[in-house]
């Protein structure tokens, strides 16, 4: 019952430990207080409260001389109004009736700060990140060095390295969303060379499942859904965008390019199909066609949504306040909000979706990854053919002239149709064949929503109080948030210019925000614990220098996502044990003195079950799939005119696809997703909650697909392993990447014996149990044994050894 004396770590005490001297850190200590307690009135929107309202969000404002004196007087700190008022009993600030009052500690910080001269500096997130000088050469070592320093200051250090099996499972789950396959695991465990781990990582990075898993996080952020979202919530043709995201991650498309295509692929010269599909990002806002809705109102709402999503996803902050008035905390004037919005205000789609699948503009594109591959191959053949064939002599002079200036498709047609020298040649036959095949494939294409600009931009004005019918002031040029830098010179004022600004190395936020989220997915929590808010009200990074180092390094690497992940998973920080420590009290793991442990995401839970039971269908891409779902869930909520009012469950192998492909109806996503904290995708989500509820228990143990997985896992164990001991170990190797412990063996055996006896006494019930789910049962196996095993498998699949990352 004894426990070590805990070292209590909290943000403030940690800061105190590290601040050797008494100097107050403005950015970390003062600004959060000013922002939270003072800026509502004395901040960027001070003018709202009168012309002479004093501003405390800049040194100029705070030190300006007025009749009553200076808020901060560096020459005579004791005379500073700020100090007089925060300590005044008669006339205090904040006023006695204000909702937020200063604490004693906060008053003390402000006092010390003013006494030390009241220096201002920019909020850290608006200052361009830079690398500090470090003794280490490699980024991996820099990460560990910076983490270790802070641990040392708190009197602790890393946990020992995790055992190899646990590490293999962890890294596979983090990179691909599934545990390591058996052969990969064995190969790694047997490979005792120093490169073994790196080899494992490389294999995982090149697994097609990598892109599928990483895409999920991005789709949460951009609120990807398969329906329009509002009112009828009809079907929307947009899944090629989801498949493009998967391809982009698998091909390791540099992230600056990844972003540019999404914001402005259509504006690139000779935009490719992929570049245009990517602009589905711009079209991802929920939309409506509700009878009676007013188009101008939804033009405004759609734009708010896009602008504010951009804010959350790439700038790491809410711009929403500035929709109605100048931001209260962050330096974002209302005018700049509408300038930013203006980039999106000139897209060509109507503000109402017409309840249409093809809510134009749309583009015809291949349906899934296999069709993409086929299309790519045909294009390659075409290019080879048209580039190899020097037309000289083979074409008529007119055709030859044309040949030099037209697209590959046109060239191919010239070859296929010419009556000159090439007529009836092998080349012509090949060209004709190719034209016909491409035409055939094209016929099967599906459509996807894309962005396109109007020939003449729409006028954008500030909307007073954010009301669509209250435009005010002069028309605005598209523009950026000035506290985040300059709009790059000689760049067009359109979405392409916007992308250039966001991905420029001068931008203080984008790389930090992205790197933080990638850290979060690798380590469970971000370096900034409020990934959605890097503004003045957000949390300060636990390791600011590290965040900045990684942000700069990410840019220097060419925005190379795989490289960043490779680096992170090689760190000691990642490779240490996740066992909770009793020698330090750091429940939020701000010191990263152990690896993360948490319950896996909804999609991973399902995929893991499908995979271990051998049901997983590896088909990639295509229209969303509809696995089992309790009857009537959509019907109970949908409008009778909606084309998603009834859930038509899929049949056959579509039931067993990875969860990334599960159909996402925004007003009613699949219940096994929402039960395990998946967002509705109506608004951006950059951090899912992780709850632990009794309803989750019911889902884990009773849902049809899970019952089906259990019996297929049972069959597999029986078929592929000789005896019960080996079967239990085999299940644990798949689910936990290790053999079962003696105790686990004993527990599983006991349950197995109980269940065997129980179903032997009621063989009909065993058969009934094995009839749940569509997939046929293996009739060569004894139903009593399979039923008994399936009940053990249910428990194994639901146990924390399977459903957690650790």
């Amino acid at each position, binding site marked *: 019952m004894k426990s070590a004396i805990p070292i209590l770590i909290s943000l403030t005490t940690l800061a105190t430990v590290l601040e050797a001297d008494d100097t107050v850190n403005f950015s970390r200590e003062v600004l959060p207080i000013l922002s939270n307690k003072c800026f509502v009135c004395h901040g960027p929107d001070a003018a709202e409260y009168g012309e002479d309202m004093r501003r405390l969000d800049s040194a100029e404002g705070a030190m300006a001389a007025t009749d009553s004196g200076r808020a901060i007087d560096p020459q005579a700190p004791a005379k500073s109004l700020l100090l007089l008022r925060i300590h005044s009993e008669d006339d205090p600030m904040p006023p006695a009736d204000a909702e937020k009052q200063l604490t004693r500690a906060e008053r003390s910080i402000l006092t010390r700060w003013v006494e030390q001269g009241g220096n201002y500096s920019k909020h850290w997130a608006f200052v361009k990140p830079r690398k500090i000088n470090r003794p280490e050469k490699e980024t991996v070592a820099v990460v560990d060095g910076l983490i270790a320093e802070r641990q040392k200051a708190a009197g602790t250090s890393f946990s020992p390295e995790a055992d190899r099996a646990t590490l293999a499972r962890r890294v596979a789950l983090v990179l691909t969303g599934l545990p390591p396959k058996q052969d990969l695991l064995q190969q790694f465990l047997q490979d005792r060379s120093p490169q073994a781990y790196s080899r494992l990582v490389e294999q995982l990075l090149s697994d097609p499942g990598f892109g599928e898993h990483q895409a999920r996080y991005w789709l949460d952020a951009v609120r990807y859904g398969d329906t329009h979202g509002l009112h009828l919530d009809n079907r929307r043709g947009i899944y090629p965008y989801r498949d493009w995201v998967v391809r982009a991650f698998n091909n390791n498309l540099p992230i600056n390019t990844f972003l540019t295509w999404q914001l402005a692929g259509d504006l690139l010269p000779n935009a490719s199909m992929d570049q245009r599909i990517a602009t589905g990002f711009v079209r991802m806002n929920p939309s409506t066609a509700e009878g009676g809705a007013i188009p101008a109102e939804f033009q405004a709402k759609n734009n708010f949504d896009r602008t504010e999503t951009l804010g959350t996803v790439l700038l790491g902050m809410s711009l929403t306040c500035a929709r109605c008035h100048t931001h209260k905390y962050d330096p974002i004037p209302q005018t700049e909000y509408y300038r930013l919005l203006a980039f999106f205000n000139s897209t060509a789609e109507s503000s109402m979706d017409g309840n249409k699948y093809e809510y134009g503009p749309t583009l015809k594109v291949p349906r899934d990854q296999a069709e993409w591959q086929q299309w790519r191959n045909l294009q390659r053949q075409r290019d080879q053919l048209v580039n190899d064939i020097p037309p000289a002599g083979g074409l008529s002079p007119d055709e030859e002239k044309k040949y030099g200036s037209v697209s590959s498709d046109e060239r191919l047609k010239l070859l296929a149709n010419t009556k000159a020298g090439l007529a009836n040649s092998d080349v012509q036959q090949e060209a004709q064949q190719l034209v016909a095949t491409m035409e055939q494939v094209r016929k099967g294409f599906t459509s996807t929503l894309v962005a396109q600009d109007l020939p003449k931009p729409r006028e954008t004005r500030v909307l007073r109080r954010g009301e669509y019918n209250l435009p005010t002031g002069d028309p605005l040029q598209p523009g950026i948030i000035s506290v985040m830098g300059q709009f790059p010179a000689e760049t067009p004022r359109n979405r392409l210019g916007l992308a250039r600004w966001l991905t420029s190395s001068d931008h203080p936020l984008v790389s930090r925000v992205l790197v933080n989220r990638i850290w979060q997915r690798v380590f469970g929590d971000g370096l900034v614990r409020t990934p959605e808010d890097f503004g003045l009200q957000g949390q300060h990074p636990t390791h600011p220098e590290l965040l900045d180092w990684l942000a700069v390094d990410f840019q220097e690497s060419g925005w190379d996502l795989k490289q960043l992940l490779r680096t992170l998973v090689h760190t000691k920080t990642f490779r240490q044990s996740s066992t909770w420590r009793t020698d330090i009290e750091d429940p939020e793991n701000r010191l990263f003195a152990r690896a993360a442990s948490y319950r896996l995401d909804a999609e991973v839970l399902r995929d893991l079950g499908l995979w271990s039971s051998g049901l997983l269908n590896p088909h990639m891409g295509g229209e969303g799939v509809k696995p089992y779902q*309790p009857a009537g869930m959509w019907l109970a909520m949908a*409008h009778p005119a909606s084309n998603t009012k009834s859930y038509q469950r899929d049949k056959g192998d579509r039931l067993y696809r990875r969860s990334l492909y599960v159909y996402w109806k925004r007003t009613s996503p699949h219940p096994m997703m929402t039960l395990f904290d998946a967002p509705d995708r109506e608004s951006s989500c950059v951090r899912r909650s992780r709850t632990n509820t009794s309803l989750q228990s019911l889902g884990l143990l009773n849902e049809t697909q899970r019952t089906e997985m259990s019996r297929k896992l049972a069959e597999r164990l029986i078929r592929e392993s000789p005896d019960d001991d080996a079967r239990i170990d085999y299940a644990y190797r798949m689910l936990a990447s290790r053999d079962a412990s003696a105790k686990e063996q004993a527990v599983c055996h006991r349950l197995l014996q109980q269940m065997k006896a129980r179903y032997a006494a009621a063989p009909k019930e065993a058969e009934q149990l094995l009839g749940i789910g569509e997939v046929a049962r293996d009739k060569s196996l004894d139903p009593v044994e399979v039923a008994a095993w399936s009940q053990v498998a249910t428990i194994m699949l639901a146990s924390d050894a399977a459903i957690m990352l650790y």
Partner: protein
Amino acid sequence: MNQLYPKPNPIREHELLATRRQLFGGSALGVGTAALAGLLNNDLLAEESGVLGATHHPAKAKRVIYLFMSGGPSHLDLWDYKPKLVDMFNQQLPDHVRGGQRVTGMTANQRNGLPLCPSRYKFTRQQNNQDGVWVSELLPHTAKVAHELCVVHSTYTEAINHDPAITYIQTGSQIPGRPSLGAWLSYGLGSLNENLPHYVVMHARTNHPEQSLFNRLWGPGFLSSEHQGILMRSEGDPVLYLSNPKSVTSGDRRKQLDALAALNGEQHKRFGDPEVLARIQQHEMAYRMQTSVPELMDLSDEPKSTFELYGEDARTPGTFAACCLNARRLAERGVRNIQIFHRGWDAHGGLPREHGSQCRDIDQACAGLIRDLRARGMLDDTLVIWGGEFGRTAYCQGNLTRQNYGRDHHPRCFSTWMAGGGVQPGITYGRTDDYGYNIANPDGTPMDPLPDKADWRPGTMHIHDLNATILHLLGIDHRKLTYRYQGRDFRLTDIHGHVIKDIIA
């Protein structure tokens, strides 16, 4: 639902850690799993309050039953008696009455303009604790409990279409992404019963399902997803995945859960993560729910008089009456927050037929619920709310006759009632002009309820005011129940909301 282990709560984590040490301190997993479950039950589940711990002020209501009439019931045909409209039949709505109000795309350009449309229904004055309240013949049962109701005639909103309007009244914002009223309550107050969900949502059957509902209406928004409303369904399992698979008995499940707890105990021994212990507890609670929910849904213990009260419909699962009866049973068992959605009030055309059917669905059950709660001594601390997302226009949509007509959406005024839970019984609040088109001053002249967004005018109840008042009755200061997201301390009422003290007992 119950989350023992909210991520950013070091104190809670500390407690869990301490408990873990007591349980496992040094030794191997020595406790039997049943004992383990019992220990956890006592030690970890002793209290389950929300983030507030204690309410801001003494609560008048312990729980809410919210009868949501989705689609926008016609105040003019149910609650807001406008006899002068009879003589104005088919006259155009005067511009000075419309006062620049925007009109939806459905009636903006209709051929017959905006012809005034008196209700075809007879209204009678019912005794209440003031000078009476007029109730339409469509609601004969509800009329008889008028002395229990506080009828608000001056509820209003800005949204003019269903999706934004219903999202607005439920979440305080017209744009998706904010937590619902129920989620806020769950977040603030926690649960009274660990064996049942703390926020239950039911969808009642209707003959006119011409509306959609959305998960977001009972969704958690940016709050932790444990606060989302749990659907209590009339088809299949009442709570999703409640039943064991066929051929798995409760005894089988017990054995499975014992095994599961033992396996998870091993996992805990290995890694020490307190969440593992919390999950063992959740599995046990799920097991208890498998008994408590069917028991809840089993009406065989209800006497005949219950069905005389709620109507025979209450025997048919999924009807509004059955939902109301379930609501009472849930309330009895400590569920704090119950919401019934009844769709079909969007009467653009054929209003008499549609509202007739809708009122038959709800009338007796509403009255039955009030009486039942009263008889059981529960009405005093149960707040019952009835209302929709907006009202309907004084002018007709489509063809107008004395007997048949339709009405478009109307945000400027609509009627809502409340009962019990610390609301003054038998009163009315606010009034509208002779057209039922604008909120009016006591003298009947139209009033702009929102001359300046910051101010509140007596006699008006914006939906933010409604929500502020609901929270107030539950002991919550709507300005203080906040959650920091993206740097801002969000609350249900945004930066608005005024508690309508005049209706509080």
